[in-house]
């Protein structure tokens, strides 16, 4: 209640005091010289402000209407012209309405005495230190450690010490290949001219080492690791060795003599691998071949892994070329 009363009194005092001139004071001497009034420039500025207001309002109207064709463009036009008109108005104000004057301020002359004095002050301020070098080393150590602490999270960008897990995959000798639906892949169902994605039976498909791409080539065309293919069927890791994208393209010539040879291609940066030559890089930024998985056909005609990958799976990291794949 008391607060309300105080507010009321304040409002009455304000209202009764309105319009009354404050106490007249002696005019202060001008700092900036009086300028000529420029009514034309003032009018221009007023018109520009008015137009800017209209443009701003137009934005609100267009936004609220929400059924114009090309609404995005109209919105952009409205808000853009509002900004442009305001900028124009400010330019006119700066050029024609604000009193300007040129003042030259002399640059202070260099004084060697003052400089020496500062150096002396700095040197003398340190007189309380008895072991300056030790303190300097300690300070440098603290700052250096802080810098290192800021840099250490960069280690999360890639494994540095514990890379063993990167060589292990779910693939091992005798493991069956299954398709997206979990059905085992039959060797006879694999056709030439197309590609298949397969996973290790009963393993986590989300692991980088799990998905493989399977293609069939004429057995005579396979140049490297002929014994890794089963009836012309070869399998490679589906993860590109460059940046870890899925190798989702299979380039297959309709007529081999006049067209580029078959290749597995990564759509991210066009790394191109030769399925007939152990996944060798034909083109693109990948630095090492696509890891190959040896295949065999079991008694039931299903495809099985005949071992582990020819190299570490997935994008490259420090020291990737030092190890062989393990399982």
């Amino acid at each position, binding site marked *: 209640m008391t607060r309300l009363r105080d507010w009321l009194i304040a409002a009455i005092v304000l209202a009764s005091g309105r319009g009354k001139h404050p106490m007249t004071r002696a005019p202060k001497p001008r700092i900036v010289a009086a300028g000529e009034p420029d009514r034309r420039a003032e009018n221009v500025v007023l018109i520009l402000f008015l137009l800017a207001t209209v443009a701003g309002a137009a934005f609100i109207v267009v936004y609220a209407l929400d059924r114009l064709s090309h609404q995005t463009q109209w919105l952009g036009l409205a808000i853009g012209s509002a900004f442009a008109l305001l900028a124009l108005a400010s330019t006119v104000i700066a050029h024609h309405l604000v009193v300007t004057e040129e003042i030259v301020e002399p640059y202070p002359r260099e004084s060697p005495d003052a400089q020496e004095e500062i150096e002396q002050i700095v040197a003398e301020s340190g007189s309380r230190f008895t072991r300056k070098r030790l303190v300097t080393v300690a300070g440098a150590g603290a700052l250096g450690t802080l810098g290192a602490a800021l840099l250490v999270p960069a280690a999360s960008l890639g494994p540095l010490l514990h890379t063993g897990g990167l060589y292990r995959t779910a693939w091992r000798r005798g493991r069956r290949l299954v398709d997206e639906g979990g059905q085992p892949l039959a060797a006879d169902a694999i056709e030439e001219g*197309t590609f298949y994605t397969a996973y290790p039976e009963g393993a986590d498909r989300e692991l980088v080492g799990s998905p493989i791409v399977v293609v069939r080539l004429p057995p005579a065309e396979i140049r490297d690791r002929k014994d890794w293919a089963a009836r012309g069927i070869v399998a490679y890791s589906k993860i590109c060795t460059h940046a870890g994208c899925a190798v989702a393209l299979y*380039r*297959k010539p309709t007529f081999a*003599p006049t067209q580029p040879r078959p290749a597995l291609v990564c759509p991210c940066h066009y790394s*191109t691998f030769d399925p007939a030559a152990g996944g060798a890089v034909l083109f693109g930024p990948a630095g090492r071949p696509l890891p190959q998985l040896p295949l065999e056909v079991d008694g039931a005609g299903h495809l099985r892994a005949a071992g582990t990958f020819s190299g570490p799976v997935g994008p490259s990291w420090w020291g990737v070329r030092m190890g062989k794949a393990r399982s």
Partner: protein
Amino acid sequence: MRAVVKLLTVLVLVLLVPSAAAAKDRRGAALFAANCSSCHGLNGQGVPTSTPGANGVDGQGPPLRGVGARAADFYLRTGYMPLANPHDQPSRKHVVFTEQEIRSLIRYVASLGNGPPIPTPRPGSISAGRQLFTDHCAGCHQAIAQGGYVTGARVPPLTDATDRQIAEAVRIGPYLMPRFSTKAITPAQLNDIVAYVDYAKHPDDRGGWAIGHLGPWPEGAVTWLLAAAALVGICTLLGRRLRA
């Protein structure tokens, strides 16, 4: 009298119809010999190694026995064939044959061997098609079927492809494209993909100007680029005036 006329008419028809069919076959064979045989062989047996053919073209091409009406319909109606240089990638061109000539050629190529017929796509689901297109096609043809590049080939945009041509291409795998069996993409899934590609020809562009049909992002990026260039220009002008 009337009976005799009837009998004569029937006789004439019986004699004429096979000869008309034979004439059509002959036209197909003649067209094939004139336009296709330098690369595909006189009887469609293919030309495995480069040999000088008609019109000075060094012919070399795959056999057409068993490709069926499906492949002939696709390659002729897209203008992919005839190809001037067998080492070029076939691309969508003006179709040089008349409708009748195309039909004769398709019939002739289909008669070379036992091949698949021309497919007829049916209505499918756009959303399922989008999923399938992303899985199987978008790697090369891009998410909204605008085409692009793979190493060694241009990937055509699908804006001009008819429903039938899409259904044919998935099964044929023209040039470097892999072909997809009915096991990899079922006929029902193929209908869905066709539905999505049809949608992708005229997508619902949310970003105003359809720069790449990728939504509002490219439009905004282009705007920022233009704005940055304009700002640099203004700064240069102001600087020049201040120095003057």
